């Protein structure tokens, strides 16, 4: 066996959001080291400087067309912090609905359009499940791919009803939402969510959403694989077992969530961290960004986001990506639907985390379970809307101040930090979920979660774009345009 190390550069990586290149050092048929490069820099943090603070609601969403509402929500929360206001009840519930719609739509897009088509590739022709996978998941053509896109379009009618349009709505405001729903809107929402539920129960899960949400541990998941209702969920579990996807793509097993969907009291998914078997609260002051291997000036010390900067250094040779390295108390953290469910204490997610940590299978299961849970919650929220009661609280923007807004995108923890001076944005720093997940190494050489997850990925003879690497990368549902912004 040769121990000669070869270098592979993999890209363009499609079926992720945005542009991604991965550099791999390969020896003895597996990845030894991975370096993740986000090759697109636009500079939104600089674009925001000098503007009226409220303009963040127009500019920031355009960081990303796939999670534009999350960006808008983080900006609105920061503005609300500056103005010292809270949304009205209607505004809070409608914001939950708008944000949840985007997150569920993202999960559906990820599973059907981005992730599953890899199992319909010719490389898997000899597997027993291949014919079914190809029929349902062939890129762009598969039955389930097309059905899911139709369902996604239907789901996004929630945006037409509550937010005007998607992506890039201005409906979410610091004090609530710009549009009040009436009785008709409420009934249309019920009809829309009902149609989405029906399709997912028939095709994706083959069972009521409630049954998916209630899967309590790995044994029940295994029972679902062996004898559960037929559907794409079960097909995935079968493929995952056959290809041992539970042993692929493990990172640090430190999880981060800011918590999602404000309820009357608390959040539907509580935030915090989970590591070494323990859940803890989160101290946002412990978050910093390290520039050591980013092609950014400011490498001397890690930056708390209120003091952060974004000055690209095109001449730099040590940096290998435009992405900075966020750390919480100096450590890399993984974020996303699985992390969110682990932190929030969903029993299946906790059991998976305890037994096998985060991996390709766990991340996908996390998203599919969350999709069911979130849709159920959405149906309840529609009934909490009160036409006639106020939708948007009013505030006044101070001439100076600082505030942050923390929310959850489909891909995980998203934060905006805004500093206002003389009525203008003086500093704006954004830390996106994929910035956490796809961060480069830091000053002490710790690789980011994906870089760690790729180590040990098997490479088949002659592969230049290894399929195992593709599964691992896509299991995170990366959003590269958000990463570097």
């Amino acid at each position: 066996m040769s121990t000669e190390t070869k270098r592979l550069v993999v890209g363009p990586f499609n079926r992720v959001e945005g542009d991604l290149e991965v550099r791999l050092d390969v020896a003895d048929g597996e990845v030894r080291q991975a370096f993740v490069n986000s090759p697109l820099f636009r500079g939104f943090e600089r674009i925001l400087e000098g503007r009226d603070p409220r303009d963040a609601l127009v500019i920031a969403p355009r960081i990303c067309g796939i999670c534009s509402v999350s960006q808008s929500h983080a900006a609105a929360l920061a503005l609300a912090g500056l103005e010292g206001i809270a949304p009205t009840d209607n505004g809070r519930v409608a914001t939950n609905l708008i944000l949840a719609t985007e997150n569920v739509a993202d999960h559906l897009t990820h599973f059907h359009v981005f992730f599953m088509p890899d199992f319909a590739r010719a490389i898997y022709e000899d597997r027993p499940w291949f014919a079914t996978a190809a029929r349902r998941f062939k890129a762009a053509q598969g039955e389930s791919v097309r059905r899911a896109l139709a369902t996604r379009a239907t789901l996004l009618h929630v945006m037409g009803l509550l937010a005007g349009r998607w992506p890039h709505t201005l409906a979410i405001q610091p004090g609530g939402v710009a549009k009040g729903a009436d009785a008709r809107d409420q009934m249309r929402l019920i009809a829309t969510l009902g149609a989405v539920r029906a399709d997912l129960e028939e095709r994706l899960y083959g069972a009521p959403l409630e049954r998916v949400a209630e899967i309590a541990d790995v044994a029940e998941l295994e029972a679902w694989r062996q004898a559960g209702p037929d559907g794409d969920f079960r097909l995935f579990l079968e493929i995952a077992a056959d290809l041992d996807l539970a042993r692929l793509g493990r990172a640090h097993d430190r999880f981060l969530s800011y918590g999602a969907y404000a309820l009357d009291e608390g959040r539907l998914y509580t935030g915090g961290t989970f590591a070494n078997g323990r859940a803890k609260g989160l101290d946002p002051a412990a978050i910093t960004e390290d520039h050591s291997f980013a092609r950014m000036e400011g490498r001397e010390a890690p930056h708390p986001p209120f003091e952060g900067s974004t000055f690209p250094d095109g001449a730099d040779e040590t940096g290998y990506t435009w992405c900075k390295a966020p750390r919480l108390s100096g450590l890399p953290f993984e974020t996303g639907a699985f992390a969110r469910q682990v932190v929030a204490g969903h029993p299946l997610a906790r059991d998976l985390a305890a037994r096998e940590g985060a991996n390709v299978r766990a991340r996908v299961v996390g998203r599919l379970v969350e999709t069911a849970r979130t849709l159920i919650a959405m149906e309840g929220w529609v009934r909490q809307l009160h036409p006639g009661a106020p939708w948007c609280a009013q505030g006044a923007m101070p001439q100076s101040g600082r505030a942050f807004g923390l929310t959850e995108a489909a891909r995980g923890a998203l934060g905006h930090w805004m500093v206002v001076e003389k009525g203008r944005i003086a500093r704006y720093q954004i830390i996106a979920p994929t910035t956490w997940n796809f961060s480069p190494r830091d000053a002490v050489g710790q690789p980011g979660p994906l870089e760690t997850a790729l180590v040990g990925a098997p490479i088949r003879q002659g592969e230049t774009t290894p399929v195992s690497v593709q599964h691992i990368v896509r299991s995170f549902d990366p959003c590269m345009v958000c990463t570097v912004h």
Partner: protein
Amino acid sequence: MSTLAREPFTVLWLQSGGCGGCTMSLLCAEAPDLAATLASANIRFLWHPTLSEETGDEAIALFEAVLAGEVRLDALCIEGALLRGPNGTGRFHTLAGTDTATIDWARRLAAVAEHVVAVGTCAAYGGVTAAGVNPADACGLQYDGRRPGGALGAAFRSRSGLPVVNVAGCPTHPNWVTETLMLLASDLMRAEDLDSYGRPRFYADHLVHHGCPRNEYYEYKASAEKMSDLGCMMEHLGCLGTQAHADCNTRLWNGEGSCTRGGHACINCTAPEFEEPGHAFLETPKIGGIPVGLPTDMPKAWFIALSSLAKAATPDRLRRNATADHVLTPPAVRDIRKR
């Protein structure tokens, strides 16, 4: 000739300095869905970053085959601004796996494409990516903001003889894109079908104001004063619907939405330099109480005269409802026989 008898109309789609929102919007196409719509015109994506199976080497091999003339390219679609920085190198965006600036790929592929389509305001004029200090030195394919030029130069014509077709919008409505591709595939788009900014006239000859449900408030200058009010948003909340070239209120988004139906201003996202309005987006700049930006084609004196007349005649119902978030006073129910 049936569409089936013809060779498929081939499309290669690349993304550069944008947010992917135009693609995400495209996937919202419905009745019929995207696949059925494209099939109806025999349009085939050679490669699309979101939809295709090929990744890495396989994708690059395809781009090379197109450049070598081995695979015919009917339409090159570019989404996202083209990045010239830093210092003219284009290295703020290299096409992953190729170590080559995406702007260079775009130029080389544009040279062999029958048609070149800018999908979205970024690709058309630079868009939000070019806002503020424009850190990445972003521009559009054939415009740099309002000025002709951009990545391909003002004189560029694709092999068909058309300039870059600018399907502007941030993001684009899915049907603006599919209808443009269908017109090109059917050989039905001529230079005169594009407006002075290169936008397809089938949607750019409309104003967002057309079909806005707030038109009655507009007529009487019954204005919204704060977000979530029902009134017209032109006077105080920055709405540019009377000047914005798009059919958003007659075509509708995501089933039945539009910006103004969602309770917020139209920010004129189909226009070059919409990203720099010179004032806060959700605020209307005024001089002497009169909005600076007047409705397209309206002489200022007339606007002033008409609006003071309209204000004097505003029915109480509209005055009250304009500053509320739900209908306080419904239209009176009249017995029509007694009229």
